[in-house]
């Protein structure tokens, strides 16, 4: 539970959220994505420019890599651009069933959704989990390219990613007392 958090992210910049486990990074991202409502406060996000990547990849094991991405491309109303397979190092895996992928490959497939959707603001929750070092570096490159193209990124991560980006340390905002939750009405 967090309180008093205040930030804004301009286009072309990134914000890295840091803090101990359970402090509320995921909740903050879910709130920005519109899955939850803040208990108090105001959020101004252009929802139609957002894309959210959660812990879970949302990858369908019974579909091939290409079918998985084609589905998301169509949901976001975009043609499937073949270049995305190269960007996320999935070229050789296109026809493989997603169920046969390793954890890292699955993660790359999950992240490739960002590439097919063409949204300006990326909300990323621990995107590098189970990625190897080379993949992390490659993903950092993807993020830099996105920023250079005028996009924005809000990312919760434990590793050093995007060294130049602004960091928001959440520890000072840990709610001192239990905030006004629903149960407060009963006290």
């Amino acid at each position, binding site marked *: 539970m967090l309180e008093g958090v205040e930030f804004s992210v301009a286009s072309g910049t990134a914000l890295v959220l840091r803090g101990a486990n359970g402090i509320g990074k995921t909740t903050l991202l879910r709130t920005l994505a519109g899955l939850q409502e803040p208990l108090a406060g105001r959020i101004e996000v252009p929802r139609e420019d957002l894309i959210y990547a959660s812990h879970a*990849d949302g990858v369908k094991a019974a579909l091939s890599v290409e079918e998985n991405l084609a589905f998301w491309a169509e949901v976001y109303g975009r043609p499937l651009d073949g270049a995305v397979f190269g960007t996320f190092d999935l070229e050789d895996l296109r026809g493989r069933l997603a169920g046969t992928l390793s954890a890292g490959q699955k993660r790359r497939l999950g992240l490739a*959704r960002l590439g097919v959707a063409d949204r300006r603001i990326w909300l990323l929750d621990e995107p590098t989990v189970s990625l190897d070092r080379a993949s992390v570096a490659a993903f950092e490159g993807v993020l830099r390219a996105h920023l250079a193209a005028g996009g924005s990124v809000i990312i919760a991560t434990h590793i050093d990613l995007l060294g130049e980006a602004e960091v928001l340390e959440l520890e000072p905002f840990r709610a001192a007392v239990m905030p006004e939750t629903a149960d407060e009405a009963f006290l």
Partner: protein
Amino acid sequence: MKALFLRDLRLAIRAGGGFGLGLAFFLIVVVLVPFGVGPETEVLRRIAPGILWVAALLAALLTLDRIFALDWEDGSLALLATSPLPLEAVALVKAAAHWVTTGVPLAVAAPVLGILLSLDGSVAPVLLISLLIGTLGLSVIGTFGAALTVGLRRGGLLLSLLVLPLYVPTLIFGAEAVRRAGDGQPFGTPLLLLGGITLGACALLPFASAAVLRINLKASA
């Protein structure tokens, strides 16, 4: 929306299980009935419409929890909820996919199984049409139940308890139409009422399903 529909169809077919299981269940229930009530043709002919309808309804119930459960577990549902697709459309499309993979095969199989219960051949078209219309309604109503229980670990039994009372009007009108056809009476009224319920459910329930999904997504953090 088309993408989601095709994806759900593809998943249902590739994952196997689902729709074959429903059909097998339907067959087994219909086969068991004569063992229970005895082999007299007259008795079987009289109860055939009801048996076929109840068995199809239960078979459609079997696969309801799969409508959202898998998408819930692998996180797709949260990603879909933040995508440009409205959740109302997601609910309706998923109901339609469920209908195509369970309701339609059940409806097509029903006249064949009707032979086992000595159902009159002339009744078969009414049986087929009533089941085609009715199972669409059942899928849409069932999707609402599945959305209600998606966040629960053991929601299966609860899902049946919630959904079965909601199935009563559909079952009554559907089976009544077939029974009247079997007795040589006009069956237009129950068939129209059945269609009315299905249309009403298609028009309104996706909103309730979407509202319920949002509540469950909100509470899942």
